[in-house]
Structure formats: structure tokens, C-alpha cells
């Protein structure tokens, strides 16, 4: 198989404009003759479905939740980037492009990222026109804040609920089209197979999660927008239902899976509390604007804290190690996520972690400095130039509450500790997956007619994703890229006519799905699905987590292979196929996670360099920073499925060319 990225010729700033001008179109009167399936209604899927419907195509959209408004995009807290330069701090399309490429550790495609930066401003305009209530300043203008990895304020936000507001915006457009009868929405439906006819994607097999019915749906093109695969680790910040099934099924049908080992570990999550934990909660990165991260300098102090004999507030200023400020003076607490995460692991590995659990993993995110300075500032602004310490504290806390109130409440509910009084405890957790289905410039996978958007594809973030750029990518793909590129593809389909679901390909695909369901339900095993999922998660976290090495990866590959055998032999799935059956849903998802997990380890093993979220312990410089190998690994690693044994997958390389940005070591010092 030859990978053709279809990157257009020309200067980077003109590529997309010129390319769009020459893409083929489908005339408005022909669009109602064409059907499109969109799987997933997060930012990427909802925006795509709404756009296609508005253009006049017939759209069927699917999601596994009870309503499209609940897609996981809803949970994004921090914000969305756009190069608007409203703050006049020197932002531009080029700078956003540059920051994103650099942030991605030079493992993303220039042309895609530039396109993303180009349309970013438009996204904000579009969302505001839809009634998305972004934060405003007193002059009525949009407000911005900054995020890790950048030196400008380009992040638009709606308190700590940006993803929610953006998704509700896309959902409202989707709803409008559903109301107009242009979209058939299938809630509580899960795609379990792709149907190919003559090599092209022509439909899907889905399970109605309420009745258990297996349904056939045909279309001229299929868009996969099913989000990320972080739940391969069991514990992550992802929603419980987030899964890789759609992406993995198309992988098995010939779509290459790219850079699976690139996983973002987010530095500011609440540490694990115990063995029954089901999910990890993110504390928005925006907190790093106001919080200072530290651990006790002396190990004895860390031990005393873990033993409950000492409180963090009792540790003197000079006995605190503000390790990010110390190591990275230029960016301080706002270094990119991979850098911040690794630094936290390093101090915890060295025995300075503060969490009293069996891992001792946790560091402090401290707001006391901010409380002081903002308290004083507010007092002065009110004309009180001689505030007492009490007044300062109270004003400072009030300031924090206005800015981050909901996050602080959330933290308190979960941990039972008051972050206004004592520093938050945080630790890195699995958050976002940069890898995904390989797509070309058109966002088309290696299966003709099967497009992949949003977190489910691999394309824009390289080895590390900067904050506030996933929301941007999801909406860019759905509103502003797919409408053009999918139309170009569909221009060849105006005479095809309806695709029959009676074709033998549909019959066979349906049979395969039913067989695998029946296999699980009749398996006379003894262990629950979660039992296997948790074991997979532990292998992944310990050996394919924040730091990887050859030995661990090799072990992981073997252990996952045995886990897979055991899973099929010993899993017990109760209930039947013709009813709502959450255990069955989980079993089908975990089966795919196991195979993907193995591929992630295989991919991590071949990548003998450190970059972004992929830190190979063998490849670091004297100061413990990542050591990239551009000479040998400046490529996208795209894997081709070769049957049951994942070890047989074949690696294809897409060389990355940097023509417009000079490649350099990433330095945040």
C-alpha cells in the first residue's frame, strides 16, 4: 500500500484556498440524491452532519448516548484557540500554525495545521453567530486567556464550560436540521461494522442499544467522528462510553491506524483515590494561569504529609520546590502538557509525591500567591491602600471564586478538601489521543468514501496536543473541511442511486456482527468485562504510559496477547442480545481496546526516539528532556491490519516534510 497524503502544491498560505477552488462540486439539485452517514455527534460529527444537511444531502447521524448533546466534547473545560489577535499581542495565523507544529514536537503535517490555523478565526465567528455565549469583557468584546505552550492570549472560553457551549451550538444546528427533516438522528445506536461495496465505504451495521436490533444503513459516504481512545487505559478523563470500536472496525477493513502510541497525559487531574475508581477528573489547565505547582524539597516533609502528620500549609516557602518555575523559567507553570506531566512524574519518582495512596503520586497546585496578589490588587482598585491581611485573603478568594468557582467546587465535592484553604492535589492522567485513523489532506482514510474527523483521526496534533486545540480541530473538520472534500468525492456518485441494504456485503457484515455478539453471550466464562478492562489498563499505564522502555514494551506486547486469549476464553457477559445490555456493549468495546492496546505498544517500541507524549526512557538528554531523532523518525507511523495476531501488522511510513517551519529542538526554558 502506498500512502498518498494529497498535500497540494504551492505556498503554505495559499494551499487550502487554491485547493478548494479546484475541488469538484455537487450541484444543489443533485445533493438530495446522495446519502451520508455520520457516526458520532461530538463537535466534529455534529458540525459535519449539520453542514451536510444544510447543503442539501440526506444525512443519517448516530451516537451511543440518549441524545447527541451528551457527546464527550461536552466535557471540555478550558477553551478554544483562534488566531484573531483581538488582544493585539502579536498573534497571527502563522504564529498559531507555528506554535501548534512546535507544540506537536514536529510530528504533525504542516499543510493540515496551517489550514486549521487559517479557519480558526472563522470558527469563533460561526459559533458567536449561533448564539454561543463566550466570555466578554466590559466593553462587550470577546475575552481571551492563555493556555500552556503559548505566549499569546488566543483562547476563547465560556467559564469552565467551553466544550459544553460549543457542543450545544453545534447541537442546535444539528437540531435545526433534524427538525427540518434533513437529518435522521439515531440516538442510542452503536456502529459495529463498516460495509464496503466494491472497495468503497457504502454503509454501516449498527446495534439499536434499546432493542438490540442489528440494523443495516447504506450511504454514499461514511464519516467516522467517534472521538478518542484514551479509555484503553481504563482510567482516563474520557467519558465512560468513549471507545475505539468504529475506528478499529474500519482499521480491520483496510484503514491504516496512525501513531497509536501518541497519548496525551494531562498534568492537572485529581489523583487516583482507590481501587474502585472508575474515572479520573480533569482540573482545567487554565488553573495553571493562577496556580503554582510544587512539591516539598525534603523527602522527610513529603513523607510526613503522606502520613498525615504535616499539612502543606506548614511547609515554609524555602522548603518548597516550584520545580516548573525552576526548570523552565520562560514558561514556568505554563509549559506544555507533556513537559509538565513528565516533570511531575520525575519528582514523584524521586520520592517527593504527596498523595497518601499506594502510589504516592501527587503534587500541589497552590493558589496562595495568587490569592495574595489579586487580593491586594482588588483592595487597591477599591481605593483601600492599606488592606489588612484578612481583607486581602477574603478579596483574593473572591477573585478566584469568580474565575474558577465551579472548578473549585467540583474539586471539593470529589476530594472533600477546600482548595481555597489548602493547595489542590493533582497528578497527570490519560486525557487525549493524538493517534488515530490515518487520513489524507481530504480527511479520507485509506478506504475510499470513509472519512474520519476530530479526535478519531491522527492528523493535526503531532506527538503532543497543545491545550484548546482539539475543540478547534473538531469544528474545523466538521464545519469547514469535510463539506468541501466530501463533496469532491461525492461528485462521482450523482448517478449511483440509492444503495441497497440487501447487497450480499450487507448480509455478510450483519452476520459477522451477530456472530461476535452471540459468541460473547454464549461464552461460559467466569470473569466480568471490567475485570479484563482494568487489567489491560494497568499494563498500559505501567508499561505504555508516561515513560516507556524497550523491556517494558516488549513485556506489554506479550502480556496483552495473553490477556486477549484469556478474555475470549473467560469473559462472562450476562443478559441477551435483544434488550438493553450494557455489559454486552462494554464487552464489544473492550475486545477492540485489547487489540488496539497491543498495537500501541508495538508502535511505541518501533519509535526509537522521544517526542511529545511519547517518552522513551532510553532517549533523553543529560537533563532528562526528550531526545527526538528527526533523521530516522520524522514520519507518521501508519499500521496495516494483517489478521488476528496484531504482531503481524505492517508499518507504513509517511515522511513529514517541513518546508515552512524550521525544525528545531523544542525548548521551553
Amino acid at each position: 500500500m502506498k500512502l498518498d497524503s494529497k498535500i497540494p502544491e504551492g505556498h503554505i498560505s495559499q494551499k487550502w484556498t487554491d485547493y478548494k477552488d479546484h475541488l469538484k462540486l455537487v450541484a444543489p439539485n443533485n445533493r438530495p440524491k446522495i446519502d451520508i452517514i455520520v457516526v458520532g455527534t461530538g463537535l466534529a460529527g455534529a458540525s459535519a452532519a449539520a453542514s451536510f444537511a444544510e447543503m442539501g444531502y440526506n444525512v443519517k447521524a448516530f451516537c451511543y448516548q440518549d441524545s447527541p448533546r451528551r457527546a464527550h466534547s461536552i466535557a471540555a473545560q478550558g477553551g478554544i484557540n483562534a488566531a484573531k489577535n483581538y488582544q493585539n499581542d502579536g498573534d497571527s495565523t502563522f504564529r498559531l500554525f507555528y506554535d501548534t507544529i512546535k507544540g506537536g514536537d514536529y510530528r504533525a503535517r504542516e499543510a493540515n495545521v496551517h489550514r486549521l490555523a487559517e479557519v480558526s478565526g472563522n470558527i469563533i465567528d460561526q459559533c458567536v453567530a449561533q448564539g454561543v455565549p463566550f466570555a466578554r469583557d466590559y466593553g462587550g468584546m470577546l475575552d481571551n486567556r492563555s493556555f500552556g505552550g503559548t505566549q499569546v492570549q488566543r483562547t476563547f472560553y465560556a467559564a469552565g464550560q467551553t466544550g459544553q457551549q460549543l457542543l450545544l451550538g453545534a447541537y442546535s444546528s444539528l437540531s435545526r436540521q433534524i427538525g427540518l427533516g434533513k437529518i435522521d438522528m439515531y440516538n442510542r445506536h452503536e456502529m459495529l461494522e463498516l460495509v464496503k461495496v466494491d472497495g468503497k465505504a457504502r454503509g454501516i451495521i449498527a446495534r439499536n442499544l434499546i432493542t438490540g436490533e442489528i440494523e443495516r444503513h447504506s450511504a454514499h459516504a461514511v464519516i467516522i467522528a467517534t472521538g478518542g481512545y484514551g479509555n484503553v487505559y481504563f482510567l482516563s478523563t474520557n467519558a465512560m462510553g468513549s471507545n475505539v470500536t468504529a475506528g478499529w472496525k474500519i482499521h480491520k477493513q483496510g484503514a491504516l491506524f496512525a501513531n497509536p502510541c501518541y497519548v496525551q497525559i494531562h498534568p492537572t487531574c485529581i489523583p487516583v483515590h482507590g481501587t474502585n475508581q472508575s474515572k479520573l477528573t480533569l482540573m482545567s489547565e487554565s488553573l495553571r494561569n493562577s496556580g503554582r505547582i510544587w512539591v516539598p524539597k525534603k523527602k522527610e516533609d513529603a513523607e510526613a504529609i503522606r502520613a498525615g502528620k504535616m499539612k502543606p500549609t506548614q511547609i515554609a516557602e524555602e522548603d518548597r520546590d516550584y520545580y516548573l518555575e525552576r526548570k523552565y523559567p520562560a514558561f514556568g507553570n505554563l509549559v506544555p502538557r507533556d513537559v509538565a506531566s513528565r516533570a511531575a512524574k520525575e519528582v514523584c519518582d524521586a520520592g517527593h509525591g504527596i498523595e497518601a495512596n499506594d502510589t504516592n503520586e501527587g503534587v500541589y497546585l497552590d493558589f496562595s500567591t495568587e490569592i495574595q496578589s489579586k487580593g491586594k490588587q482588588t483592595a487597591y482598585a477599591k481605593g483601600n491602600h492599606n488592606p489588612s491581611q484578612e481583607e486581602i485573603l477574603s478579596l483574593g478568594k473572591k477573585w478566584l471564586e469568580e474565575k474558577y468557582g465551579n472548578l473549585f467546587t467540583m474539586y471539593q465535592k470529589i476530594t472533600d478538601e477546600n482548595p481555597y484553604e489548602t493547595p489542590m492535589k493533582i497528578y497527570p492522567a490519560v486525557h487525549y489521543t493524538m493517534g488515530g485513523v490515518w487520513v489524507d489532506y481530504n480527511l479520507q482514510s485509506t478506504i475510499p468514501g470513509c472519512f474520519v474527523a476530530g479526535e478519531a483521526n491522527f492528523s493535526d496534533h503531532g506527538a503532543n496536543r497543545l491545550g484548546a486545540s482539539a475543540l478547534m480541530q473538531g469544528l474545523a473538520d466538521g464545519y469547514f473541511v469535510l463539506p468541501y472534500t466530501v463533496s469532491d468525492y461525492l461528485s462521482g456518485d450523482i448517478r449511483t442511486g440509492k444503495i441497497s441494504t440487501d447487497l450480499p456485503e450487507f448480509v455478510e457484515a450483519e452476520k459477522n456482527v451477530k456472530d461476535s455478539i452471540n459468541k460473547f453471550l454464549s461464552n461460559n466464562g467466569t470473569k466480568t468485562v471490567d475485570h479484563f478492562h482494568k487489567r489491560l489498563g494497568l499494563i498500559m499505564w505501567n508499561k505504555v504510559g508516561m515513560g516507556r522502555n524497550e523491556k517494558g514494551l516488549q513485556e506489554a506486547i506479550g502480556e496483552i496477547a495473553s490477556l486477549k486469549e484469556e478474555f475470549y476464553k473467560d469473559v462472562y457477559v450476562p443478559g441477551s442480545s435483544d434488550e438493553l445490555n450494557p455489559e454486552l456493549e462494554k464487552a464489544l468495546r473492550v475486545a477492540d481496546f485489547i487489540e488496539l492496546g497491543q498495537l500501541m505498544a508495538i508502535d511505541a517500541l518501533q519509535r526509537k526516539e522521544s517526542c511529545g507524549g511519547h517518552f522513551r526512557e532510553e532517549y533523553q538528554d543529560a537533563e532528562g528532556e526528550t531526545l527526538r531523532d528527526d533523521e530516522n523518525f520524522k514520519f507518521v507511523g501508519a499500521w496495516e491490519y494483517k489478521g488476528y495476531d496484531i504482531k503481524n501488522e505492517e508499518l507504513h511510513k509517511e515522511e513529514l516534510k517541513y518546508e515552512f517551519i524550521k525544525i528545531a529542538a523544542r525548548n521551553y526554558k
Partner: protein
Amino acid sequence: MSAAKNINISLQIWRQKNSKEKGKMETYKLNDVSTASSFLEMLDQLNEQLVNERKEPIAFDHDCREGICGMCSLYINGRAHGPDTGITTCQLHMRMFNDGDTIVIEPWRSAAFPVIKDLIVDRTAFDRIQQAGGFVSVNTSGNTIDANTIPVPKDDADKAFEAAACIGCGACVATCKNGSAMLFVGAKVSQYALLPQGKVEATNRVLNMVRQMDEEGFGNCTNTGACEVECPKGISLENIARMNREYLSASLK
């Protein structure tokens, strides 16, 4: 700050095979529940136990488990989202309960939210209300004017945001003795009524959404205010008042 400990509890849970069959309460015992667990983690633990005993696990709705998707529901000890305020069920923690407690768990109860199975109900009526007019009719082409061309006073933007914070969980309906959806619909109508972008269609929007709300079989609002008390996102009754004003002036047009 309380250290986590383990407690033993007894659970009375509504079991119902599907929308057609009748349901009933069943009792379960569960030991060694960490008070640091969330309520849903407690249910996971129970389900793990049930599956290991070869019994059918309890079906309940959930996804994000961080209080934002609106998917979790559960009527716990007679209250929507349980005995804490300003949170969803997934944010409820077992430290709110004591060793030896009996906890009663039921699905949302409302004619407009029929039970699908056990603790899962059908809330698609909310989607249909939104489809009837909960949007601004702008094309998705991106050919919109620059976002800062129309300034929005901060107060209006903040109020619109507060209304838009509704997560569509349905606690307001479940807790209302009339099964009214006014808080949900009021929030949506308010968000757009407060923003310049939504003004043009305001008349049709409120008429259409209210018509759909009535068609879905939600009850009438008699201003008992129970919805506001149980709403996890603090959506205020002001939104109902604003909707009523919008409705009145739309009806007079």
C-alpha cells in the same frame, strides 16, 4: 477533611425489564463501600457483585461522570440526584452516607420520561423541544461577520451563559409534582432571548418550543420552585419568568 473509610449499606432499587413490563423494588446488600467512591462507583461495585453471582446487573444511565453531560439521573432517597445540592448523581459521593444506611434508588418519574429499563428513562422529548426552535437559524458556511462586530454587554453575556449552562438532565421535570419542563425550556428560550443573535426569531422560537413542550405531555408550572432547588446547574426561576414574558408578547403579536 474526613479520611475515607468503608461502610456497609442496603439498597432498594427499582427493577423493570423494559418499558412494557411492570417494575418492582428489589433489595440488595453491599459491603465494603469506600466513602471516597462516587455514587456511580458504588453501583459499579454492586453490578460487579451481581454479575459474579450470575445475576443481571442494574441498568443506569451515565457517561462523563463529571457532572456535565447530563446523562446520569437517579432519584435517590426521594430526591433527584440525591441528598446534596448543586450536583449531579455522578458527583455524589458515598461520604454523604453512613454505615448501615438503606438507600432507595428509583428512576426519574414523569409521564413524559417513560422508563426504558431499570433506572434508565427516555428523555428524547427534550431533543424534540429543541428541534422545534431551540436554535439560531444561521448557515454553517462560516460566511458570518466578525464575532466582535456585535458587542454584547457583559451582563447579558453572563446571564445568557448562566441559562445556557443547563445540561438537559431532567431533574427539574422529575422533581416537579406536575412534571413540568418549564425550567429546561425557560433556560433555552432565555439564552437566545438575551443575545442579539437570537432576537430575530424570538417570537417563533418561544411559540414553537412551548407548543412542542405541551405536545410532549409535560405538566404545567404552578410555581412551586422545586425544580430550581434540585437543578444541578443552578438554573434560576427567573428564566421561567422571562419565558413567560417572551411567550406573552409573542402571543400578542
